[in-house]
């Protein structure tokens, strides 16, 4: 195994891949086409005044535009190039403590008025079902603009350039022994105008970039096959992230690893010590800390679908969630974070709203949207509201949630050196967790045996399964800032109708003791 190469790949490199100077012209995103601040103000006046006239105690208007681009290839072929725009608005109105929401893709003053009326109408139809009227905390009104800093707007980079890179990835993988290689890139440019009856008038613009590949190695004689996915994370970054990530080199490495995995020894199940790389640990943080610490889940608002949480409100400030090495921060301000934004979809300013969810192992705060803070005797929410589209209702979603690096400069080798019998896990694989977030099972991309403090041969068929609190309390070592890596997901699902949210999770490699390891090879099928 070439762990050093791997780490360098994941961390990115200053050495750029071969990229022409097409990046010289890369205009930063500007306001929604045809909708300047004055025009939006006019529409906001229509919505907010109508809502007030019809009896709403609070209302907001969001106008959103999304531009998406995807490029997909396999082997020597371009499978598809797709570009889309999606545009519309939603009005939210609170009437007698009951929410109403409506939306349309027709942004005329007339339609804004009709949709506002519909939002109020739904609230009035449903208030007969209201048991606990919603009360919002008063928020400051902001007139502001927030544009994500980036160097290269991905939409200014030519398609040919993107295709060339992806085909180079596929070629590198196949030359290195892969039978198949699928690769792709997705880019999203999200723009939001927001106005609320609290006096906010906001414009925000941000971009997401996600390069990736998946190599497959097949042995038809035995009927076995294996894959190795790219470790590249989606990021709230411009194309400079794609440019600087060594995707071609990682593809070559992945092809070698997939071949090795196909012939690797199957794992012996049992209790083992684990050293988990951030390319895997980010997802464990997401599922076993990010979700259970959502206040709406803990209160029961998501009981029908996403579930509730073992982290009940009486455990706030008391639950020993993890060992003293575990401090978990929630933020929407981290550079490159997929949840990073200036204001959340309730109009809460995110700068200064950063908070610790877990402080040295102790559970210290929930993620909250507006109206929830008083339920746990806090004065204000912490900027965690998000709607994935103009036609969806903003609900509490994760900020970037990250494991803070240790203060000491500890390397992965040092973590591994204190393991007699364990497994080193890289990359995220299959993942599943129960509806209250106790019992989880996670796979990975690459697994190495650790024997007497040294990395040994590759293993296959590995999954680790555990109980959230036991797992995080079994952590007895983490690396320092030098090993920090920002992972994340484009598509975290929650809510009904289901909404997807982009979110990042930073972490450093961490060591866990006596974790239950499963063998996932099913020999009878």
């Amino acid at each position: 195994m070439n762990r050093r190469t791997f780490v360098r790949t994941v961390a990115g490199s200053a050495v750029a891949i071969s990229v022409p100077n097409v990046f010289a012209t890369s205009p930063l995103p500007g306001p929604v086409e045809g909708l300047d601040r004055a025009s939006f103000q006019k529409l906001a006046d229509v919505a907010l005044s109508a809502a007030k006239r019809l009896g709403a105690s609070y209302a907001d208007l969001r106008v959103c535009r999304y531009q998406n681009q995807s490029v997909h290839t396999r082997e020597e072929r371009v499978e598809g190039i797709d570009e889309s725009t999606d545009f519309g608005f939603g009005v939210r109105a609170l009437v007698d403590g009951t929410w109403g929401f409506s939306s349309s893709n027709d942004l005329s003053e007339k339609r804004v008025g009709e949709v506002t009326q519909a939002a109020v109408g739904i609230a009035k139809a449903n208030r007969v079902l209201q048991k606990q009227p919603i009360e919002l905390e008063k928020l400051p009104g902001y007139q502001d603009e927030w544009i994500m800093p980036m160097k290269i707007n991905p939409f200014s980079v030519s398609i040919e350039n993107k295709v060339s890179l992806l085909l180079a990835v596929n070629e590198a993988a196949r030359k290195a022994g892969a039978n198949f290689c699928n690769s792709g890139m997705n880019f999203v440019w999200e723009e939001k105008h927001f106005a609320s009856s609290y006096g906010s008038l906001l414009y925000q613009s941000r971009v997401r970039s996600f390069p990736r590949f998946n190599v497959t190695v097949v042995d038809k004689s035995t009927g076995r096959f294996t894959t190795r996915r790219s470790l590249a994370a989606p990021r709230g970054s411009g194309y400079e992230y794609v440019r600087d990530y060594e995707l071609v080199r990682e593809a070559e490495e992945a092809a070698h690893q997939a071949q090795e995995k196909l012939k690797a020894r199957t794992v012996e199940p049992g209790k083992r010590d684990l050293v988990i790389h951030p390319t895997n640990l980010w997802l464990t943080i997401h599922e076993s800390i990010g979700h259970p610490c959502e206040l709406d889940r803990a209160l029961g608002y998501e009981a029908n679908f996403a579930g509730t949480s073992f982290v009940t409100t009486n455990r706030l400030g008391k639950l020993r969630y993890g060992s003293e090495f575990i401090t978990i921060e929630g933020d929407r301000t981290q550079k490159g974070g997929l949840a990073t934004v200036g204001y959340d979809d309730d109009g809460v300013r995110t700068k200064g709203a950063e908070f610790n969810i877990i402080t040295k192992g102790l559970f210290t705060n929930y993620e909250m949207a507006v109206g929830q803070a008083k339920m746990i005797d806090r004065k204000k929410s912490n900027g965690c509201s998000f709607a994935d589209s103009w036609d969806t209702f903003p609900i509490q979603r994760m900020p970037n949630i990250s494991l803070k690096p240790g203060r000491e400069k500890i390397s992965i080798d040092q973590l591994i050196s204190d393991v007699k019998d364990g497994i080193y896990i890289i990359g995220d694989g299959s993942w599943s967790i129960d509806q209250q977030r106790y019992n989880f099972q996670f796979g990975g991309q690459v697994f190495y045996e650790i024997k007497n403090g040294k990395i040994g041969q590759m293993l296959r068929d590995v999954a680790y399964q555990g109980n959230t609190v036991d797992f995080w309390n079994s952590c007895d070592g983490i690396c320092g800032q030098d090993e920090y890596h920002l992972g994340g997901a484009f598509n975290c699902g929650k809510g009904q109708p289901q909404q997807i949210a982009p979110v990042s999770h930073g972490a450093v490699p961490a060591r866990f003791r006596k974790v239950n390891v499963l063998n996932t090879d099913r020999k009878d099928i």
Partner: protein
Amino acid sequence: MIISEVEAKRITDKVLALSKADSCTVTLGGHARTHLRFALNGVTTDGEQDDLTLSVTSSFGTRTGSARTNEFSDAALAKVVRKAEEIARLARPDPEFVPPYGPQQYLPGQSWFDATAKSTPASMATATRPVLDLATQKEVTAAGFFNVGQSCSAMATSKGLFAFDRSTGALFTVSARTSDGTGAGWAGVNHHDIGRLAPATLGRRAIEKTVDSRGPIPLEPGKYLVLLEPSAVCDLLSSFVGRAEARSADEGRSFFSKKGGGNKLEEKLFPDSVNVYSDPHDSIAPGSIYSSHGLPARRRNWIENGTLKDLMYSPYWAKKSNREAVPAPTNIVMQGGSATQDELIASVKRGILVTRFWYIREVDPRTLLLTGLTRDGTFLIENGKIVRPVKNFRFNESPVAMLNNIEAMGQSVRALGGEGAGMPVSVPPLLVRDFTFSSLSDAV
């Protein structure tokens, strides 16, 4: 936004007329939906969604590009066509290019019900109220989702294909929890016809399960005889059918690959009693009348008397394999037996009843091994009776094993999986031996 067939034809004709490409495919997709969410026995959020999307795929020779928009002004239509063509010109020649299809024959659609289309926020609130009242009366906490809407879709090609379909849909799911937090139950289903939804009945079933599931006991993980209710069967069977695709099988990277090369078509995989098919005119779970590439949906047997009879074939792979293209199914039906669920329970000496599964993920594509958890009503059956609630389990099991280990099956009914609505599904409850529960979960 819901548009008529005439309006859809007008838009697709207009877009095709703007096309300068050698070939062009235009698709439209619209919806208008109203939803209501409730939790803690009261309404939480609600809303209306209304959209229409246009997608254009243009090809010059074998170079192809696609663009989408949800704006419909003349300028926006021209812009999206130009965008698709601009991408196509920049694209590379595609060795797997297959031109769009010409005119096709479609069955008439059977998925539209006026009663569903006429539903209003007020009628939805009225139908929900008895569920919340019963929850309050039984001192449990209910949460749920009611979603009612209409959708339409159209596809047209420069070769003369035109397809249009529309449907209505109503979904109601409800879960409840006991005040001590030890019991939980769920019921839910979706129908095209809101008249078949019966929210009050679903609410009563969920609440009864909740009360009965209070104070579960732990059982040792291991292999059990399980009675999988239709929701649980729906999730596992959908995973199986969704992966029944020829190319990945022929390439040696799927459960459907044959050792040594090729695929498992015509192999006897399961007992004679297993029959799985698609049929857009199924009376319980009708599907859309057309599928990918505008190909007509028609009755198609995936598993017939236990033998694999069909796999999905993309137009390119079909041509290469000298077979007909087989589009993705638009519904899934598993033939059932005649037994009621109570009769199935009565036949069990010792087993576990599973209401639904949750967080199902693939662990190994070679064996279709899945992991996930039981949720919202897991009970021990002994000597033909449900005797007590048990703690939830994590399973590591394959739908292949499920279909091979069927002991008995009930009547096929409309079913909704635990992770949301996919295509319409009709499946029976299944009694399955040797189902693998690998660990216990404390979750309720």
